[in-house]
């Protein structure tokens, strides 16, 4: 039993699963559109919240938010379930596949057999779609893979019930109802406004533009406070989050620029095209930051000056992003 599901590669897994699921139900949205409407763009740096002893830096919203927001803003009905019982999680999945429904799932990548070994950390917020089953084998669409993949029931169970930080607990989600008419314009405006709000007004200093500035301030002190070795590791971690599989380059900044370009046409607002270009410049600055950062963490003995320089680059990026979002905040339909 295999549904008539088309696998298309995406930069980011949650965008990809959302976009592929929507297409199955006749709604054609590009990855940047999904990302923009779902307000996926974000920044957070939480010095107190640590993973492997290093502060968590993220360039996107929490896992699950993009799918939730996109479907809500388009009036699509969905169901989301999580499990304690592994057997039940597989029985329910089989039932849905039998009914011809593709199912999105949250999985851990550590045991994902088709992933390159070097990418298999204990990262538990990866998204894939199961779209069919034959015997013991599940047809899998993993958006970051170039082609469809196959997992055995045992393998799928293992990744759905991976352990560690934020365990996926067999979480799955699927579409249950699609409205007759989809109105994209208000959804696009809603997506843009929410992102602008998230980036500009959250009253906690670790999120949005203020988060970038916090990272800059802390980074300046890393070599003194943590020593060269730890400073290098922390910096490497930031670059991994910025460019790790699935950001589309420059921590989602290029995907967002692509979204603004598409939105400019759909909403017939040329200002969005100008802002798309400005966002491209922001992306370039992040890439430039990554190039310099890699030089710093490769030669660990460079000391304080280079971290200061990186911090200055971050401050300049923060100013630029702030300008873009202050203009986006006032967007009207």
């Amino acid at each position, binding site marked *: 039993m295999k549904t008539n599901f088309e696998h298309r*590669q*995406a*930069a980011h897994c949650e965008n990809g699963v959302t976009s592929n699921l929507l297409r199955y139900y006749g709604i054609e949205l590009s990855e*940047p559109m999904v990302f923009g409407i779902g307000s996926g763009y974000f920044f957070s740096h939480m010095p107190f919240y640590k993973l*492997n002893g290093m502060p968590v830096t993220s360039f996107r919203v929490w896992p699950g938010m993009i799918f939730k927001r996109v479907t809500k803003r388009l009036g699509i009905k969905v169901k989301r379930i999580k499990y304690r019982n592994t057997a039940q999680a597989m029985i329910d999945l089989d039932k849905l596949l039998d009914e011809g429904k593709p199912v999105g799932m949250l999985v851990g990548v*550590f045991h994902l057999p*088709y*992933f*390159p*070994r*070097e*990418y298999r*950390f*204990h990262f538990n917020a990866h998204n894939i779609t199961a779209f069919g089953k034959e015997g013991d084998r599940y047809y899998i669409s993993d958006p*970051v*893979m*170039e*082609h469809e993949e196959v997992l055995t029931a045992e393998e799928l169970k293992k990744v759905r019930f991976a*352990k*560690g930080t934020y*365990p996926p607990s067999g979480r799955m989600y699927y579409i249950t109802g699609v409205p007759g008419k989809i109105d994209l314009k208000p959804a696009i405006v809603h997506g843009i406004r929410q992102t602008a709000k998230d980036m500009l007004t959250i009253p906690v200093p670790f999120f949005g533009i203020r988060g970038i500035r916090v990272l800059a301030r802390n980074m300046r002190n890393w070599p003194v406070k943590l020593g060269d070795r730890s400073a*290098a*590791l922390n910096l*490497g*971690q930031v*670059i*991994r989050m*910025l*460019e*790790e*599989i*699935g950001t*589309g*380059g*420059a921590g989602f900044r*290029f*995907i967002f*620029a*692509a979204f603004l*370009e*598409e939105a400019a046409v759909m909403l017939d607002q040329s200002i969005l095209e100008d802002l*798309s270009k400005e966002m*491209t*410049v922001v*992306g*370039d600055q992040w*890439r430039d930051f*990554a*190039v310099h*950062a*890699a030089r710093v*963490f*490769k030669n660990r003995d460079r000391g304080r000056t280079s971290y200061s320089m990186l911090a200055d680059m971050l401050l300049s990026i923060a100013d630029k992003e702030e300008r873009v979002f202050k203009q986006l905040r006032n967007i009207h339909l």
Partner: protein
Amino acid sequence: MMKISEVPQDKAFFEEGKIRDLCYVVDDKGHYTKALSLGWAPKNEAIKLAWDVVYEHAEETRKKILEGKLSPVAFYMELNIMNPVILANYMNLSRRKVKRHLKMKAFRKLKPHLIDRYAEVFGIDARDLTDIERLRQFKPADENQL
């Protein structure tokens, strides 16, 4: 901007036709489009750095095992990028127990069924888990076999 003609192809961990990074890039007319990248040096360096740390920790642990302080469980835990919390979750044991099993003294008294379970979690043979000689000869070049 990242131009379509300038998409980095710094091959390290990806494989053409299997997995490459999808990037949003700008075409000749200045419009956004998609392109596949085999990798980018700064990012590859960051991933390599993360693995260097894993192997450094594993090597420190290996030395302590040969001194009779830590147990092989500690070594394979490091190689699998786990910590006592993750390992305890996979083992369905308390963190306190797992931490005890990291010491050679407690490891020597481990019941066979627990040895089997640890070996299963690490994806190795139970005999290899208790084989100290194997650890003595372990070289980073063996990494790929684990």
